[in-house]
């Protein structure tokens, strides 16, 4: 029921323009992830959708209503914050039911809703605790619960997992994915962790300096980055770029092979250089070579035993490479 459309959205604070003519159509029940470097305007956009910031120009449509001037509570949205925003003086139950109590719902109804949400989130045993007595992951569940009981049509998440350690982040990520499938609502999710973006999103929106660089499925964004920025931003370790005639040639580290271990490649090219760094990640290794004045990193399986300073040969397929215009940096 709730698609979200952003039409020619602009945002500026005094003279500084933060968002510049943004257009985006989000389908009903879609999981959209906004990624981009710090300060590019992700939170600002999310807060505008929530009704916490003014829209300088343009329209925001939720469902089929223009919500530009609606109060947050009338927009059918709920928001989950990075620092959870749980009130330390209230129990988990009180925190989750805060909005319902503000809306003056009947006690029994509140109880029912809170318990239902708690069950889905597996925090039924924690309802009487105070936030200080919870772990980070539990706190984030509570704040999701707080958003859930509002029965919103759109969930807004602003970096909900970035205060968690790596392991918890992985498991919470899976749970958010599951939650999306259970609740069947539209989700707009801000992160600057690209693994989160790749695994959670139906479509990823890559932003930079208040502009959308590319919208697409994780695979599209990864396989066919629209420009050099997206190419460099998505994927880890970062894509290698080499200046080559009137273009940048980009090749992902995972598409580069050691010559002796390479499969048969179409359109094979080779590079050779001195090993300047080796990082061992366990199942694979990162090898950086210096060739001329460019550095190229390859991701190879297994433990790599070569010495730094030794010469080595890499190969890759031109079919896997990406070319970007040298001036516009657009994909060619």
């Amino acid at each position, binding site marked *: 029921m709730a698609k979200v459309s952003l039409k020619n959205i602009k945002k500026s604070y005094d003279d500084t323009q933060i968002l510049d003519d943004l257009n985006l159509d989000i389908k009903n029940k879609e999981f959209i992830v906004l990624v981009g470097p710090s300060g590019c305007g992700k939170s600002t956009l999310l807060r505008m959708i929530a*009704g*916490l*910031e*003014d829209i300088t120009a343009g329209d925001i449509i939720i469902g089929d209503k223009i919500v530009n*001037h609606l109060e947050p509570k009338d927009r059918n949205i709920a928001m989950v914050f990075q620092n959870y925003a749980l009130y330390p003086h209230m129990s988990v139950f009180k925190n989750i039911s805060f909005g319902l109590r503000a809306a003056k719902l009947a006690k029994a109804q509140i109880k029912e809703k809170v318990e239902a949400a708690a069950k889905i989130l597996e925090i039924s045993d924690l309802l009487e605790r105070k936030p200080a007595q919870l772990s980070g992951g539990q706190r984030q569940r509570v704040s999701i619960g707080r958003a859930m009981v509002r029965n919103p049509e759109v969930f807004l998440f602003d970096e909900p997992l970035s205060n968690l350690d790596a392991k918890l982040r992985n498991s919470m990520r899976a749970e958010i994915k599951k939650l999306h499938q259970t609740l069947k609502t539209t989700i707009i999710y801000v992160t600057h962790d690209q693994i989160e973006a790749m695994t959670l999103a139906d479509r990823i929106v890559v932003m930079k300096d208040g502009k959308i660089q590319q919208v697409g499925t994780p695979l599209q964004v990864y396989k066919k980055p629209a420009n050099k920025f997206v190419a460099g931003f998505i994927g880890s370790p970062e894509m290698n770029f080499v200046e080559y005639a009137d273009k940048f040639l980009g090749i992902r580290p995972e598409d580069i092979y050691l010559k002796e271990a390479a499969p048969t490649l179409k359109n094979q090219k080779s590079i050779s250089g001195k090993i300047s760094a080796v990082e061992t990640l366990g199942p694979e290794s990162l090898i950086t070579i210096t060739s001329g004045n460019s550095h190229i990193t390859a991701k190879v399986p297994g433990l790599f035993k070569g010495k730094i300073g030794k010469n080595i040969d890499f190969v890759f397929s031109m079919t896997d490479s990406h070319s970007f215009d040298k001036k516009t940096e657009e994909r060619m």
Partner: protein
Amino acid sequence: MNKSPRTIKQKRALWAWLFLTIPLIYFIAVRFYPTVGAFSISLTQWNIVGDKTYIGFDNFIALYHDPVFWGVLSNTFEYLLLGVPISLLLSFIIAYYLDQVRFGHGFLRACYFIPFLTTAVAMAWVWRWFYQPVSIGIINLALGEMGILQLDFLRSTTQALPAVLAPAIWAGLGFQIIIFMAGIRAIPMTYYEAAKIDGAGSWQILKEITMPQLRPTITFLVVISSIGFLRIFDQVYNMTQEGEGGPLNATRPLVLHIYKTAFDNFEMGMAAAQTVVLFVILMIITALQLRILQK
């Protein structure tokens, strides 16, 4: 015409002004207007019932030529110049050692702190009793039993001022000790550990680590306690005969003088001029201290 609805920013600003309306009225009516009033009354001659006569700076000129007023100012500075160093030195020494004590720490701290919570008026009378001549006053009683000569205290023009100052220092000590201890506690342990590894003695640590680190605390306490001693009133009013600040004005500070001028003699203009002098003194002293101590 379709009026565009208010933006979030405008709504917030409206709320802000709504919240601030009563406070602004209050601050204007009860702080700013009276401040201006004090300055303007200081330029008049006025006995509160009759008319105000504008006399320019005559009040200030009269004060300049008034030996009693100079005496009062010198008393006021005597309170300041005795009170601040004595109370800070005492409270620092006590705080420094109390901080190292574990056994009975809470109890000792409470003993030092409780006087801060007492009513100055009540304690002034207790001390006044202590200072009475033998057969009534505890101190002279004790001195007598030890066979030492008696002291006149509040009856002497030289001893009265320190005698009045003592309960003021005594009552403020607890606050200063607590603040000093908090300041000492806030110094990172690693500084001390590093100094110990370098082989510094405890005197050197005190001089080169503790004291410099305590500079903001010391500045704060110097400024606050100076303001306190410059405004001393309750003790003097309650410890001297008829609240006159005697004997022979020997203990009368500026605030008591203002009180007498305004509410015994009803010379409102003159009293206001005296408050302006107090204001200027407070400003200058505070500014000087901040400049010197914050360098």
